[in-house]
């Protein structure tokens, strides 16, 4: 018996393999392109109906820029909010360090969001915490408190009368204090948001409460490009 002739598998096999590989590559490319195109279409399609912001709330009436300045924790007179240069943002929060619930978590939420940003963007965002409790918020204590969240946060302690005048211009009620029964402490009312001033000198949006850091970071990234009036059409 002669062995069966060796089947000439090599070259046609290689060809077939190459052919199959080509088809696979083409099919995968086609799928990838289709997916990419459809995704793009989805993106475009959704953008129209999506809310513009993930975490920020658009204010019905944009806040004007406060003109108030107050001593920072080093005693240097500092504006509560500056009109930011193009590509920058100025964030303003009113709170107090004896606040157990809202202020600490608002600051933690903001700090966590800022950590999500690349340093180049982070450096373009100024954050001021204006105390509504100058009685208890000694500069050193305020500085320590803020440093627990982000040492770049600027703390200012304006006289309450000046803060109330500013709040009136922004459309808010004056700060009130409420004794806490069973203690010598008191609660202080304060505007609830982190107000975001854009280069047009207005705060069109604010962050309220705690939000997912990535959502806040996404919104800040968008806002760093300046305010687009079409966002509130």
């Amino acid at each position: 018996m002669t062995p069966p002739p060796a089947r000439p598998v090599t070259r046609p096999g290689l060809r077939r393999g190459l052919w199959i590989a080509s088809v696979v590559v083409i099919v995968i490319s086609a799928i990838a392109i289709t997916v990419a195109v459809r995704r793009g279409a989805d993106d475009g399609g959704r953008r129209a109906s999506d809310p513009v912001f993930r975490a920020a709330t658009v204010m019905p009436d944009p806040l004007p820029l406060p003109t108030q300045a107050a001593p920072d924790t080093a005693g240097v007179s500092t504006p509560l909010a500056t009109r930011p240069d193009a590509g920058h943002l100025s964030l303003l929060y009113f709170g107090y360090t004896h606040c157990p619930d809202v202020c600490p978590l608002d600051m933690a939420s903001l700090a966590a969001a800022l950590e999500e940003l690349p340093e180049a963007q982070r450096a373009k965002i100024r954050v001021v915490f204006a105390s509504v409790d100058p009685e208890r918020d000694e500069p050193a204590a305020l500085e320590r408190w803020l440093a627990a969240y982000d040492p770049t946060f600027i703390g200012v302690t304006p006289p309450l009368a000046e803060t109330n005048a500013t709040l009136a211009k922004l459309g808010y009620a004056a700060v009130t204090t409420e004794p806490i029964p069973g203690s010598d402490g008191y609660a202080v009312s304060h505007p609830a948001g982190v107000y975001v001033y854009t280069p047009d000198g207005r705060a069109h949006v604010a962050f309220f409460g705690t939000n997912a850091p990535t959502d806040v970071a996404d919104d800040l990234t968008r806002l760093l490009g300046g305010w687009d009036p079409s966002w509130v059409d």
Partner: protein
Amino acid sequence: MGRLARQPRRRSPRRTSTSLVVALVLVGLAAAGCGSGSGTSDSATTVAAHAGAGIRVTNARIPAPANPDTAAVYLTITNGTDHDVVLESVTTTAGGHAEVHRSSDENGMATMAPAGPMTVDAGATLVLEPGGYHVMVMNPTRSLQVGDHVSVTLHFRGAQKVVTTARVVAPSDVVAGGDGHGDAESDDAHGH
């Protein structure tokens, strides 16, 4: 009333794969939570309903206070009994004075006031969470550092009390994991 659940946030298409991974991880965590009986308020509700358990307190946590004079405890109360219960007071081993307070928003101004006795309906879950109800601890005599544990006793009408352990966590953990999926551990407790 405390908000009972949070809506999952929608992600953009470009994050679909990330969302999927996150969703799978969350499903895994939820499954793990149910298995150990120490998961979300949802799983706590389920467990309570099936076991006919008493009052359960879960997910107790304290954001490490930046001001040592004041702290807040967040937790979830599940009333697995067939009758309404009334939370009358809270004590902690952190020292100082503890009281349930409620933060609220009045025309854009955040305010805070004592909540008074709080009724948790039969079968209901009350969530004490940031921006709403919380146990305010005034002038704690202990320093509260991340990783510390504080015993928290909830006193209900009728001399019933429930003891739980609150863990001191980084404030950012409360922000990111406010629904109980975060790093905050919970210790379950049952009424006596």
